[in-house]
């Protein structure tokens, strides 16, 4: 049985990227359907931290995209806007325990002041550590940033979907698609669907549909605590991130007491503790040694952490690309088929901006230069094939 449905655009993948595209496109008056193999926020968007950060991004395209998205997030979080109550700004803290990390903080401070980013350096506590209570002996330096933000991937996904009015179909798995001159035909587990335009926002699932794209999984262990604390718990004003994250990949091969760690206080009073960056992996692939490495480093930075209880641990899977940049734009040789994937560890922060820009592509208005730079055209030498 095949259904013949006509939409202006169909979006495959109801993660934060697909949901944001759906909302932005619907606002432009397009008739949208969004399909997902399991349901909203079923993959990375439901299994990640929600830092909307500029400071930790590589200078260049990624930093300027992050900056643009951060200020756009703030607009969308205004009264009566879609991300109101979902996106928040809050202070965040980067800390250093060894010289290499302290130097990374120096470079960061210089860069932030140079570029006049919307992120201010509040306090560089070379001598004092009082801005964050309860830090371990080994923490030598803390940098306090204001203006960075946070939103939970699943809350943003939900908000975009609810407000979009787009037609949601799940569970509905996309198996193949064809671009014809009369539009795009999708073959799904629940039948055939047709639309003028089609967006693939299927995260890691994209590899099954376009096997030649240079996409790879980079999983990360996430550790969630319960809410219970004793009287001696030092209430954290914002997330604590070790500067090891700013070091390049080789320098990150640190002993476990210094492993990269983020301790992120959630609105519920729980903590989200992350995260590793492992090659490959699936959500089921939890790893005690990796989790212990993160926790050892966490306890060394914040000793009271030892007295919190873990209630959930899982591996989130980031979709990384060969060159480290997301892939966004129309597919070469496949008119009206657009791709938005490969956001690795940045998709939460970038989703609002990417949604807006991809919606512009769908209506033919076009997109900003930094987003055009992410076009899949850059892989044209490698064959990009569809099934």
């Amino acid at each position, binding site marked *: 049985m095949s259904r013949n449905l006509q939409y202006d655009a169909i979006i495959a993948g109801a993660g934060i990227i697909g949901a944001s595209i759906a909302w932005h496109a619907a606002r432009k008056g397009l008739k949208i359907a969004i399909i997902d193999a399991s349901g909203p926020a079923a993959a990375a968007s439901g299994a990640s931290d929600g830092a909307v950060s500029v400071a930790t991004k590589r200078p260049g395209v990624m930093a300027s995209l992050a900056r643009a998205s951060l200020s756009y997030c703030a607009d969308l979080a205004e009264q009566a806007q879609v991300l109101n109550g979902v996106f928040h700004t809050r202070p965040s803290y980067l800390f250093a325990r060894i010289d290499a990390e302290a130097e990374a903080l120096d470079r960061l401070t210089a860069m932030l002041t140079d570029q006049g980013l919307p992120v201010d350096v509040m306090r560089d506590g070379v001598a004092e550590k009082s801005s964050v209570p309860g830090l371990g002996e080994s923490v030598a330096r803390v940098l306090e940033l204001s203006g960075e933000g946070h939103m939970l991937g*699943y809350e943003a996904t939900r908000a975009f979907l*609810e407000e979009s009015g787009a037609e949601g179909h799940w569970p509905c798995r996309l198996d193949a698609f064809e671009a014809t001159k009369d539009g795009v035909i999708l073959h799904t587990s629940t039948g055939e669907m047709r639309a003028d335009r089609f967006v693939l926002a299927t995260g890691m699932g994209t590899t099954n549909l376009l096997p030649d794209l240079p996409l790879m999984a980079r999983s990360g262990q996430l550790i969630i605590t319960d809410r219970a604390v004793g009287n001696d718990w030092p209430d954290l004003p914002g997330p604590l991130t070790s500067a090891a994250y700013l070091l390049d990949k080789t320098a990150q091969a640190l002993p*476990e007491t210094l492993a990269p760690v983020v301790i992120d206080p959630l609105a519920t009073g729980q903590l989200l503790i992350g995260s590793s960056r492992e090659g490959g992996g699936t959500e089921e692939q939890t790893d005690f*040694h990796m989790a212990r490495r993160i926790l*050892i480093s966490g306890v060394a930075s914040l000793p009271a952490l030892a007295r919190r209880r873990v209630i*959930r641990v899982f591996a989130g899977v980031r979709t990384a690309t060969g060159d480290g940049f997301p892939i966004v734009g129309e597919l070469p040789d496949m008119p009206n088929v657009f791709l938005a994937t490969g956001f690795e560890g940045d998709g939460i922060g970038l989703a609002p901006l990417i949604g807006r820009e991809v919606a512009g592509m769908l209506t033919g208005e076009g997109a900003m230069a930094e987003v055009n730079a992410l076009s899949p055209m850059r892989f044209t030498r490698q064959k990009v094939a569809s099934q």
Partner: protein
Amino acid sequence: MTDRRILVVGAGPAGLSAAATLAQAGQRVVVVDQAPQIGGTVYAQNRTGDTRPLSHAKERRALFDVVAAQRERIDIHCSTSFVGLDYQGNALITGADGFLFQPKAVIMATGARELVQPRPGWTLPGVTSVGALQVDLKTAGRPPEGRIAIAGSGSLLYALGAQLTRAGKAPAVIFDAAHPFLHPLATARLPLHILQEATGFILTLIRARVPILSGTRILSVEEKKGALSLKTNHGGRFRTVEVDRLGLHDGLARNDYGLQKNPTIPVIAAGDCRDVLGRFAAVKDGNRVAAEILNLLGTPAPGISLTSLNTEKAAQRRLKSIFAHDGCNDLNDLPDETILCRCENRSVADLKALTATDQTPRMLRLNGRFGMGACQGRFCLDWVAKLTAAEMGSGPSRPQRWPLRPVLIAEILNAADHSGNETHIEESAKCTFR
């Protein structure tokens, strides 16, 4: 690695009998139990000075003797929890003796969990599960103070009632949602050992003149002047009863949370964790699963007769029909403010407020917060699944992930690494507590 051991989680009848069978076949076994002593739920021991005879003392002795005979091959750790298995097959054990190791296989004998249906007032102090009253009675040897009501359904109501009576503290009343005494035919066909035990319970209760009100449900509980005021419904007749303690019980379900399929080693459930069939079946099932593991490992296994297991299974089916009732239908009539999940403070109204976007197993958890609290959904997910069945066909998902129970970060780090993949824990990071 020839000296690798088999992990048995739970030192109840299923776990202990499995461990004994494995040890008899020459295997080395590690048994962990989160409780302070072995015995599991039914053979929980009196830990205080009280010298009153224990219930089931003979059965318990027999089981413990079989295990004691294999002491060199069985390592038992109490007050020690199994926290999970990672995908490489490492088992994390925390508590009194914490360690990380690679077992050859895992037998999950974690027993059952009690089902307690939410209703207004079920979160008041003094309202507990029937099992909590029973464990307390067994381990402290002392019944609670005040007037006790027992309510819900299932044979456990009568077991507790009789045990309290024998301990000198007959319950004030038993409310049974079902009509167990209207099934003489099914009752007569129960196996002798179950019939004898049940008759003993009922006779004890009758002699002590304990009122047993069948077909009666507790609609709500309120706190009034330091006591609990219960509103009951008996076929449309409403009554109010005042007591000090209320034990609620709406059946048993497998405690198979976090039971993980593992790509590297076999993980098999035994006893109530596999199928809630009671203590006699649990012993047999332990033997059976041990033999299954031995077969999988390619070692000679004893032949296990399944006859008695099947008898117990038939008996449990009969008991279910005897205790069948439509109590759960009440769920749809629960007032909006009724708490469904106390860990995350989620009520019936919160569930009703969820939208179409939230109606997927994953979103019911992420946005609905059902199953996301510290009890990991053990006390709300069954009911949320029933309440959302119409919209979704299935309830919130119950991902099989670690930890099986909340675990202190200090305990995760203090577990000694015997996995052969040593993580070096520096002194500064190692946590000490008394």
